């Protein structure tokens, strides 16, 4: 048997050797990457801010936030963003009404009811749903959900809010399920066992002991899922339509903030034109809303209940 000579890798050399230099170089490379990432965010924000500022220099902010007519490219443009906001709100609220029960009950099942094998299968299925690209969901909304909807309500339009809402709900359900399960898992097992020891049924323990202890985490799960729904673009662009009116029926088409940005950008946008400024204003509003929801969700997650197993 041949004796092996062990060569120490370069990065384990002493401080003065070439290893230290490699270390310094690597450090700079990492710094550059981090700076590039952060810098990109700053550039994006800057572009949006400049575009939005130009937009508000021409269109009064009052008309933007309170107006009920969105017709930015008409001869006499109207910039009331309310129809877009209403559409986004309706789809987000509808989607979370679908996703919250589905996701939270899946989380409870996975954490407290499922056997090891079935649990693994169900978790894999939920993960599979989470990995579906949104364009596939959009295709499903357009070519499966809408035809099914029209079997029940023949008056439903080709592009309508209801099927987009349903499919966005399915898309964000795994987010609620996974984050909700983490929230349940973070509750100290002692709570669960103490409840069971008192003779309560599993269902009562989960509902009255574990869930309240996990309330913050569950709220964060719902909030982060809603932030995804607000920012969701592909499904609503493909299936919800482009009608920027204040439609009351979910069977009618609606235009969300994201769909306006996407559909307008499908054409060619001159960077100095009025359409770019309108897109920038809507994109900036969208960013502020989703950022606030993310920040609130993260804040909730950061403050776990006392005695948490995973601080």
């Amino acid at each position: 048997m041949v004796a092996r000579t062990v060569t120490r890798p370069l990065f384990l050399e002493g401080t003065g050797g070439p290893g230290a230099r490699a270390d310094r170089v690597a450090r700079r490379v990492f710094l550059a990457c981090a700076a590039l990432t952060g810098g990109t965010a700053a550039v994006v924000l800057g572009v949006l801010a400049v575009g939005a500022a130009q937009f508000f220099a021409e269109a009064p902010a009052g008309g933007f936030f309170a107006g009920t007519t969105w017709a930015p490219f008409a001869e006499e443009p109207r910039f009331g963003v309310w129809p877009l906001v209403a559409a986004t709100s309706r789809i987000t609220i509808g989607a979370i009404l679908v996703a919250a029960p589905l996701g939270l009950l899946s989380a409870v099942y996975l954490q407290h009811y499922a056997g090891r094998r079935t649990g693994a299968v169900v978790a894999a299925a939920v993960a599979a749903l989470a990995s579906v690209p949104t364009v596939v969901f959009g295709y499903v909304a357009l070519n499966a959900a809408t035809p099914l909807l029209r079997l029940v309500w023949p008056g439903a339009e080709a592009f309508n809010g209801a099927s987009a809402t349903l499919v966005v709900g399915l898309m964000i359900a795994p987010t609620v399920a996974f984050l909700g399960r983490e929230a349940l898992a973070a509750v100290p097992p002692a709570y669960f066992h103490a409840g069971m020891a008192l003779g309560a049924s599993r269902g009562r323990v989960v509902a009255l002991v574990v869930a309240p202890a996990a309330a913050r985490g569950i709220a964060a799960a719902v909030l982060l899922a809603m932030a995804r729904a607000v920012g969701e673009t592909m499904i609503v662009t493909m299936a919800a339509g482009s009608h920027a009116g204040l439609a009351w029926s979910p069977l009618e088409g609606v235009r969300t903030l994201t769909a306006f940005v996407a559909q307008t950008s499908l054409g060619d946008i001159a960077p100095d034109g009025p359409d770019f400024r309108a897109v920038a204003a809507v994109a900036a509003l969208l960013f502020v809303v989703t950022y606030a929801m993310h920040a609130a969700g993260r804040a909730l997650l950061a403050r776990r209940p006392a005695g948490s197993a995973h601080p």
Partner: protein
Amino acid sequence: MVVDGSNSVLPLSEAVAAAFAERHGGGRVALRSSGTGGGFRRLCDGETDIATASRPMSARERARCRERGVRHVALPVARDGVTVVAHSRNALVACLGLGELRRLWAPGSEVSTWRALRPGLPAQAVRLYAPGSDSGTFDFFTRVVVGRAKASRADYDPSADHETIARGVAGTPWAMGYMGYAHYAANRHALRALQVDTGAGCVAPSPKSFADGSYSPLVRELHLYVAEDALRRPAVGRFAGFFVDASPRLAPEAGYAALSAAQYVRSRALLAEATRAAERGSS
């Protein structure tokens, strides 16, 4: 080679590009459809080699092109009619007058039901689908029907893609819209084309009525705008020439009317002249 522009011309460009690839090999032609306005903008910014157009270049666009030093040549390739379409089960309306279309599409129009458009029709809401503001078809239709380019009611569903308009009208009871005839032809099983009464009786849109002039106010010529600088690359000239030569055969197949033989000869001559100018410019 990058071609961008009119969505109304796209079915023809696609047919030509496919035939070109078959003849000359390679998938070197990138087709986009940002709308006629977007296509002109990109051509004058030097981003593309050819712009397809469903309306002529405006004076403002011309000035912008000149400012940037982009010379170009416009080649007529086919004739197309803007087609007014309704839901396929709407059998109550066969023909609309230009006056009715004007009342329906005028800025601020309050015609929201079929009955408001024509007494006797049901009081169903008219849901409208049409091209967006970057579209040459939109500019043309508003100019002919409303009387001023870009003057349109705004509460309709805009789309840069005529296929989306077709899908919207086909899938929405009592909907209505307008688009290039080729896109209607590709979806004719799902849509109902309405006749238009221009004052001399109702005329159905068809390549025949585009060619003989009976559908006339809603018929336009489709053009290629080729950047002169791009003609220094032989492939661009070859493609533009092929486009002109193949159009008499491919245009009718794709749902357009071909131009007269003399017009194609003229397009060829314009292209040859621009190519010579480009070569002079580079030497």
